[in-house]
């Protein structure tokens, strides 16, 4: 068995933007929620053989996130980068990724993180799968190949579900169950000294400019504003037992505890 996995990754902005979000190599990183997805794909490759392709859409700075994925062990990297993509919302992102995935076919699995640390919509994975008309399982904890299908376990708060799916299929990976491997220094040297990121433009994917960027996006961000949360400290007094009771009462009143 040889599995071709495509892992969709994003180069995210590390610090909360205020006003306009600017991406520079210094403030960007590989989305932390994409690392478990990449880890899951790498583990499948290690146990069953095959290749792992990482795919990203975004500005040129995305090359660094792709190189990081290669340092972890990805075999091939593709960046869809085009000035006409500026202002794309999640639907356009899904449209572009779906077109790129079709160019990378055949494939078995399409991996996503559950969400991104900067925009946090969780929409791109399911939207891409919908456009590709393939099954999508979210919050995946485990993936096992069986004779005629894959068994995929997904986790929710208090229960789990077992799904049988045929490939090609899309999954988003629960971050708790695929702790990403630390990057070896040799992987960094290898990824950069033989950096091989394919650059695709919209024309390569046959997507017209009016279907991309702001023009193609039904939604747009009107305003970005940084929220500063105020923390306050309150000391409880009395014997330990009384303090615990007071704390439980407080947390229950705030809805943090209790049913």
């Amino acid at each position, binding site marked *: 068995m040889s599995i071709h996995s495509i892992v969709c990754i994003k180069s995210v902005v590390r610090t909360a933007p205020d006003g306009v979000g600017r991406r520079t190599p210094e403030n960007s990183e590989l989305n932390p929620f994409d690392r478990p997805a990449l880890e899951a794909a790498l583990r499948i490759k290690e146990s069953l053989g095959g290749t792992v392709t990482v795919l990203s859409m975004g500005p040129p700075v995305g090359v*660094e996130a792709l190189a990081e994925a290669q340092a972890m062990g990805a075999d091939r990297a593709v960046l869809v980068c085009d000035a006409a993509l500026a202002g794309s919302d999640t639907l356009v992102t899904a449209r572009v990724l779906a077109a790129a995935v079709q160019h990378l076919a055949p494939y078995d699995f399409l991996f996503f993180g559950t969400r991104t640390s900067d925009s946090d919509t969780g929409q791109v994975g399911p939207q891409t799968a919908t456009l590709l008309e393939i099954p999508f399982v979210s919050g995946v904890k485990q993936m096992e190949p069986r004779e005629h299908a894959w068994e995929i376990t997904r986790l929710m708060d208090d229960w789990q579900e077992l799904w049988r799916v045929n490939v090609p299929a899309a999954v988003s990976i629960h971050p708790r169950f695929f702790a990403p491997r630390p990057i070896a220094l040799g992987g960094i040297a290898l990824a950069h000294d033989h950096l091989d990121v394919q650059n695709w433009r919209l024309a390569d994917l046959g997507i017209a400019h009016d279907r991309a960027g702001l023009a193609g996006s039904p939604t747009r961000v009107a305003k970005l504003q940084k929220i500063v949360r105020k923390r306050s400290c309150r000391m409880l007094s009395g014997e330990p037992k009384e303090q615990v009771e007071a704390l439980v009462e407080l947390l229950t009143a705030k809805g943090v505890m209790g049913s």
Partner: protein
Amino acid sequence: MSEPFLNAKHRMLRRTVRAFCEQELRPIAAEIDQEARFPWEVMEKMGSLGYFGIQAPAELGGAGLDTVSYAVTIEEISRVSGSIGLCLSVHNSVALYPILAFGNREQHQRWVPGLAAGKKIGAFCLTEPNVGSDASAITATALPEDGQWRVNANKVFVTNGGIADICLIFARTDPAAGRKGISVVVAERGTKGFVVGDLEDLCGMRANPVSSIRLYDCMLPEENLLGRTGQGLAIGLAALDTGRIGIAAQALGIAQAALEEGVRYANQRQQFGVPIGRHQAIQMMIADMATQVDAARLLVYRAASLKDQGEPVGKAAAQAKLFAAEAACLVTDLAVQIHGGYGYSKAYAVERYYRDARVTRIYEGTSEVHRMVIAREVLAGQ
């Protein structure tokens, strides 16, 4: 802010090393200092990730990175634990590097893969009880006898001494030849006559097992000679040129850590109704600390970058080491001052940084010796 001398590879490396150190080293950094314990559990992980063979070529099991990468790695490790930064700086630059630079193919095959994977730890044995800055005065001997070297040596203050498997021993192979009679032979732990002395009880860098290493009529194979006979001081100087970049990076990492703690505390600690960072007296210190750290960083990266370009690096490395070591002592001192009484307590990390910084002005060439090196080159018009 974009940093000169660093490219995308170096940025990724910094993120990677920092993430690893924050996760694995930070939780134990204070404890291993207090217990003077070498953290094998973390070091084994670092071995499997390439930290013991930063610049060794991939075909010999190394990470195949450049000197700037080496400096960034040592800086980031030292930002969390000076002791571990020291272990890896010495292992990589004055043990592994001379074997790579002066060893023959057989020696590479024999020693480099184990060292690069961290399965073997290296040490550099030059200093003797009465031999410090004047390295040409060493008394250790390695005399030829029946196709072997009979080695007698008393080496002290050996970094990694308590755990070292492969030791570069500087000894006289021709006692009559003066400076030209000094050579390097490699001694492996476990050889008969190879004795590890007691661990030193040091002021700082306490998680590194610094010890003496003594060789008593230790018979080493002829093929353990590194380079040629009489080449010892040249090997030592070449190793120390590289080593200085590592120690400079180490001092830089400690200074960076102290700056961060100073800034954090200045923003947090309230006196006279405001955070102390609002007081000009503290601001003056913060400004000096930040400037010293930035200047040290530029000198360290410049020296590393020159080495990568194959340029002569003696003066640049000496300047980086001198400046970064002095800066580390100044910056950690100011960080303690900002913390007031708390800074003098082991409950706060700056106390450890203050102790760790001090030795960077002493080892791998004192600040005074580096001034000699710099002045000599400047006066010669270089």
